[in-house]
C-alpha cells in the first residue's frame, strides 16, 4: 500500500505540471495583446498601458515569462489581481470556504438521496420505484443546472418567499441566515449529481446482485435483507465510494456556474467574473486552485479504492 501511495503521489507531480502549463499557454493564446482586451474601449494613456504590461511581464519573451511564472505559481503566488487590490492567493483563500460549503453540502444531499434510491431501484428492477428513479435521473441530467437554479429561486424565493433569492451572509450573522442562502444553490447543484449517482449505484448493485456469492448466500437460505446489506452492498460500496469522489470533483466544476446564478462570492463566481473581465492572474489562480482540489480528491479516491481492493495495488 505504501509503495502504491508513493507511486500515485509521484504521478501526481507531472499532472500538476502539465495542468499549469496548459493554463499558462491558454491564457496567453489571446490574439493581440491581452492588454487591449483588458482595457476594451476605454481611453487609457500610454504610461498606464506600459505599467500593466510591465506588471504582467508581457514585455519579455514568452519562454522567459514561463520560466519566471512556473516556479512562482508552484509556491501559490499568482501575483496581484487586476481588479481587487490584493494578491490572487488571498482573494482565493477568502472565497474558497463558500465553494467548499456549497459543494460539500450538495455532496451530502446527493449521497443521502442518490445511493438509497439507486439500491432500491436495483432491488426492485422494473418496479415503480425503479421507474421513478429512472425518470428522475434522466430528467436531472438533462436540466441545465443554472436554469434549474433560477426556477427554484422563482418558486421558493419569489413566490413562496421561504428563503432569500440570492446573496451570501457569513455564519457570524446566525446559522439560519447563512444556511437559508445556501439551500437553493445546494439543491440546484445536487439534482444533476443525484441523477448520475442513482444510475451508477443502480448498475453497480445489479452487477453485484448477479454475482455467484450472492446466489450462494440466497441458496444458504439467508434472509433477503441480510443478503443485500451484508453481502451485496458491502461489495458494491467499494465502487460507490469512488462515485462519491467523482461527484465531489464534479460539484466543484458545477459550482462555478451555480455561484454565478445565486451571487455567492465563492471561487466559481471569482473565476467567471475574472474570465469576463479578463483578469488573467485571478483567472489562472482560480482555475488552478479549483483543479488542484479536484485532483487531490481524485487521488484520495484512488487510494481509497486501492485500500478496499488489493488487486489494484499490484496491477
Amino acid at each position, binding site marked *: 500500500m505504501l509503495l502504491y501511495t508513493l507511486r500515485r503521489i509521484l504521478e501526481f507531480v507531472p*499532472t500538476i505540471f*502539465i*495542468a499549469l502549463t*496548459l493554463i499558462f499557454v*491558454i*491564457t*496567453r*493564446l*489571446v*490574439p493581440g495583446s491581452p492588454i487591449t*482586451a483588458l482595457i476594451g474601449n476605454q481611453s487609457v494613456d500610454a504610461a498606464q498601458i506600459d505599467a500593466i504590461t510591465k506588471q504582467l511581464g508581457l514585455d519579455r519573451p514568452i519562454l522567459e515569462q514561463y520560466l519566471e511564472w512556473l516556479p512562482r505559481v508552484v509556491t501559490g503566488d499568482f501575483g496581484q489581481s487586476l481588479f481587487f487590490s490584493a494578491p490572487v492567493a488571498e482573494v482565493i483563500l477568502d472565497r474558497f470556504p463558500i465553494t467548499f460549503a456549497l459543494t460539500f453540502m450538495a455532496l451530502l444531499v446527493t449521497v443521502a438521496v442518490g445511493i438509497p434510491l439507486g439500491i432500491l431501484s436495483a432491488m426492485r428492477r422494473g418496479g415503480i420505484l425503479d421507474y421513478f428513479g429512472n425518470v428522475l435521473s*434522466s*430528467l436531472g*441530467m*438533462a436540466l*441545465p443546472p*443554472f*436554469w*434549474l437554479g*433560477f*426556477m427554484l*429561486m*422563482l418558486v421558493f424565493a*419569489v413566490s413562496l418567499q421561504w428563503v432569500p433569492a440570492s446573496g451570501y451572509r457569513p455564519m457570524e450573522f446566525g446559522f439560519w441566515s447563512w444556511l437559508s442562502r445556501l439551500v437553493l444553490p445546494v439543491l440546484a447543484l445536487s439534482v444533476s449529481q443525484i441523477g*448520475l449517482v442513482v*444510475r*451508477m449505484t443502480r*448498475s453497480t448493485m*445489479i*452487477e453485484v446482485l*448477479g*454475482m455467484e456469492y450472492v446466489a450462494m448466500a440466497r441458496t444458504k437460505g439467508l434472509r433477503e435483507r441480510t443478503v443485500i446489506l451484508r453481502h451485496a452492498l458491502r461489495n458494491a460500496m467499494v*465502487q460507490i465510494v*469512488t*462515485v462519491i*469522489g*467523482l461527484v465531489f*470533483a*464534479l460539484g*466543484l*466544476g*458545477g459550482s*462555478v*456556474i451555480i455561484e*454565478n446564478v445565486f451571487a455567492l462570492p465563492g471561487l466559481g463566481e471569482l*473565476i*467567471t467574473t*475574472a*474570465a*469576463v473581465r*479578463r483578469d488573467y492572474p485571478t*483567472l489562472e489562480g482560480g*482555475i488552478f486552485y*479549483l*483543479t488542484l482540489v*479536484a*485532483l487531490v480528491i*481524485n487521488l484520495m*479516491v*484512488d487510494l481509497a479504492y486501492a485500500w478496499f481492493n488489493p488487486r489494484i495495488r499490484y496491477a
Partner: protein
Amino acid sequence: MTPAAAEATTPSTARSALRAIRRAGPMLLSGGTVLALVVLASLFVPLLVEIDPLGIDVAQKLLPPSAEHWLGTDEFGREVLDRLIIGAHISLRVAFAATLLTAVLGIALGALSGQYRLADSIIGRFSDALLVFPGFVLAIMILAALGPSELNVVLAVVVLYVPRVIRTVRASIIEFRSADFVQAARAVGVGDMRLLVVHILPKSFGPVMVQLTFGFAWAILVEAGLSFLGLGPPPPSPSWGNMISAAREFIRTAPWIMIAPGVMITITVLSLNLIGDGLRDLVDPRLQGKVGP
C-alpha cells in the same frame, strides 16, 4: 479516473440481446421523435411563418403569454417564441459542429494512438491533462482567452470532449489489434492502413456513435452555460443560453422569458440522452442501464 463502472458481467445471450432491443426501441423512438420535432420546427417554421427574432417593438414589451403572443414578449417587445425557434438554430448548430469536429479529430487521433506507441504517449499525455480540469472551467478559460464567439464555443467543446472519444477509439483498436480476424487479414497480406480503416476502425463505430450522442447533448448544455456567463455567441444572437441570461433581470416581473428556453434545452438534451441510452443498449447489451457520458 477510477474504473467505477467499467467492468461488467457477461450474460450476453440471444435473450438479453432481444431484451435490449425491446428496451432500446421505445427510447430511440421517443427520443428520436422529440428531437426530430425540435429540428424540423426550427428549420421549417421560419419558412412558413414570418419570424422576426430581432424585431424591437417597445410598445409590446414584457407581455405575458396570450393568444397573440404565444410565449409572451421580452424586454424589447421581441417575440419569445420567434427567438426560441431561431435560438434552436444557434444552439443546435454549435453543438452539431462541435460533435462533428470531435468525431473527426477523435477518430483520427484515437486511431493514431491505438496504432503507434510514440503517438500514443504524446496524445495520451495531452488528453489526460485536458481531463484534469473539473467541469467546464477549461472552456471558460479558452473563451476568456479567445473571446466570446460561436466558433470559439465550438472549439472549447471540442477540446473538452475529444479526449473521451480518443480513449474509446484507442481502446477498441487495442482490443481488436490482435484478434483472429485481424491476424488472418494480415496473413493474407493486407496493409497496415487498410487493416486499420477497413477491419479495425468499424468495430469502434458503435461505441463512438453512442458517445457522440451523449456528447451532442452535453455540448448543448455547455453552450447554454457559456452563453449564460456571457462567454457564448454575443447578443443579440438569441441562443437559448443568451435568452436565459438576458431574462435574469426580469425573473420577478416576466418569468416566462426565462422558462421557455430552459424547457427547450431540457427537452432537447433529454431526447438526445434517450437516443444515447437506446443506442448503447443496442450496441452493447452488457452495458444496459449504465451511465452515459
